[in-house]
């Protein structure tokens, strides 16, 4: 009799355990929209080996949400349309949460905070101390990013040149076609890692706070909540600090780590 009771108890416990497992909100594989080339964040070397904070983070999310991430290169201007088409299941690519984008896609996050910054040729770094020093200069930005909009919201004249990827902007800066490159300061620090002839002006930070989030299909609350829960763990359990130090060595973390208790609602 006692054995039967024990067996029944074990079955009940096993049943409860099965019910307690969270249902998978993602399929076995998920196409992840990644940046074409952003050193420190998401880039591939000549052999095709990928690296960067976003790359590491998307793999970490895959482990914790039980899916295999498949990186798919997406230009900044195509991120919303590819999410809407369903060709990618999420975007992990220094993707700033904005109210305007939220009308087209969903966001979980933020997992990183930054602000607009400026990169110039290292040989000319003495010329740039304040934002006003950019007056009348030609500044390169990537199409579809928030940088062009932020520059236009500055309120003083600058010429804006748009390229598809940051790498093209960096080369245009080296070649003297543009005077500066503007995007999020954290992306610029990543570019500076691979090009010692460039310089990120630490004193020049402007515009809205850039809050990087995970782009998701609009209205998918279950996925948003699942990812938000994992971002909170990522921030609290030390993974964020570890990945940041590994991919952006020497860059101060101050002001870049979001408050895990103040993540956006889904």
């Amino acid at each position, binding site marked *: 009799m006692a054995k039967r009771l024990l067996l029944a108890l074990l079955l009940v416990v096993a049943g409860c355990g099965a019910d307690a497992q969270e249902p998978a909100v993602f399929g076995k594989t998920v196409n992840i929209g990644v940046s074409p080339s952003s050193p420190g964040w998401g880039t591939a070397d000549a052999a095709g080996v990928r690296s960067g904070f976003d790359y590491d983070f998307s793999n970490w999310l895959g482990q914790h949400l039980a899916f295999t991430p498949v990186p798919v290169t997406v230009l900044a201007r195509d991120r919303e349309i590819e999410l809407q088409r369903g060709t990618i299941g999420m975007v992990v690519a220094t993707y*700033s*949460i*904005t*109210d*305007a984008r*939220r009308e087209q896609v969903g966001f979980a996050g*933020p997992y990183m*905070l930054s*602000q607009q910054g400026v990169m110039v040729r290292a040989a000319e770094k003495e010329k740039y101390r304040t934002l006003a020093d950019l007056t009348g200069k030609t500044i390169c930005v990537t199409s579809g990013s*928030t940088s062009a*909009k*932020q520059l236009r*919201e500055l309120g003083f004249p600058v010429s804006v040149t748009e390229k598809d990827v940051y790498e093209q902007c960096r080369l245009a800066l080296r070649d003297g076609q543009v005077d500066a490159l503007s995007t999020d300061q954290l992306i610029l620090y990543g570019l500076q890692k691979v090009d010692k002839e460039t310089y990120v002006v630490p004193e020049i930070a402007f*515009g*809205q*706070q850039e*809050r990087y*989030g995970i782009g998701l299909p609009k209205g998918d609350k279950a996925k948003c909540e699942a990812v938000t829960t994992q971002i909170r763990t990522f921030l609290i359990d030390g993974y964020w600090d570890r990945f940041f130090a590994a991919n952006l060595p020497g860059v101060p973390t101050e*002001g870049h780590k979001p*408050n895990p208790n*103040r993540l*956006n*609602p889904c």
Partner: protein
Amino acid sequence: MSHGRLLIFLLLLIASLSPLLFLNLDKAGQLASALALPLAVILVALPSIPPLRRSSVPWRKVSIIAAVIVAVVGGSGVVYAIWQGNRDIDVTFPTDGGDPTWKDGYYTVLPVPGAPPERERITVAASLKNTNKTGDCEQTATLEYTPLIDGRPQTSTSVPPGQSVELSLAGTTRKAEVKITLHYESGNANCAVDLFIDKAVLHG
């Protein structure tokens, strides 16, 4: 009139006077409605009094018809007055015509209609619209609601945009106001937004 009928008459009269206890008798319409009910009871009871002289007018029938009319009119008036005294009142706030763009730390003071307001509680909800194409501003703010009772600030309640708050206006003798203050975390303080009052309802 027998003792039994007299007792019923007195009980009906007392019951019909009860609306006088909870209606606003300063308002003529409500006072008239409240008085109509005891009047109807008296009208019903009148034929029970023996006439002093014979009359060709059928007073009994006339008084019952009159009592029914007065009771219906008065009863309707009382029901309407009770509904009017307890219903939720939608509030619209006058716009001050100032700069519609809000930034971190901006506030407005909204005067609640009525001196004092007709209800003791108000539920308010406000939302934000980003005025720029960049920035994550509409969901990241905190709105702080502070009731001002006769000019004195009371305990504040802070909620995200879009969420409603219920504030007590109890104890107001002259005027009640609601102060709404916009807050952003330090790094996100460059946001510029428009504020919209989605809901403002006075209730008991």
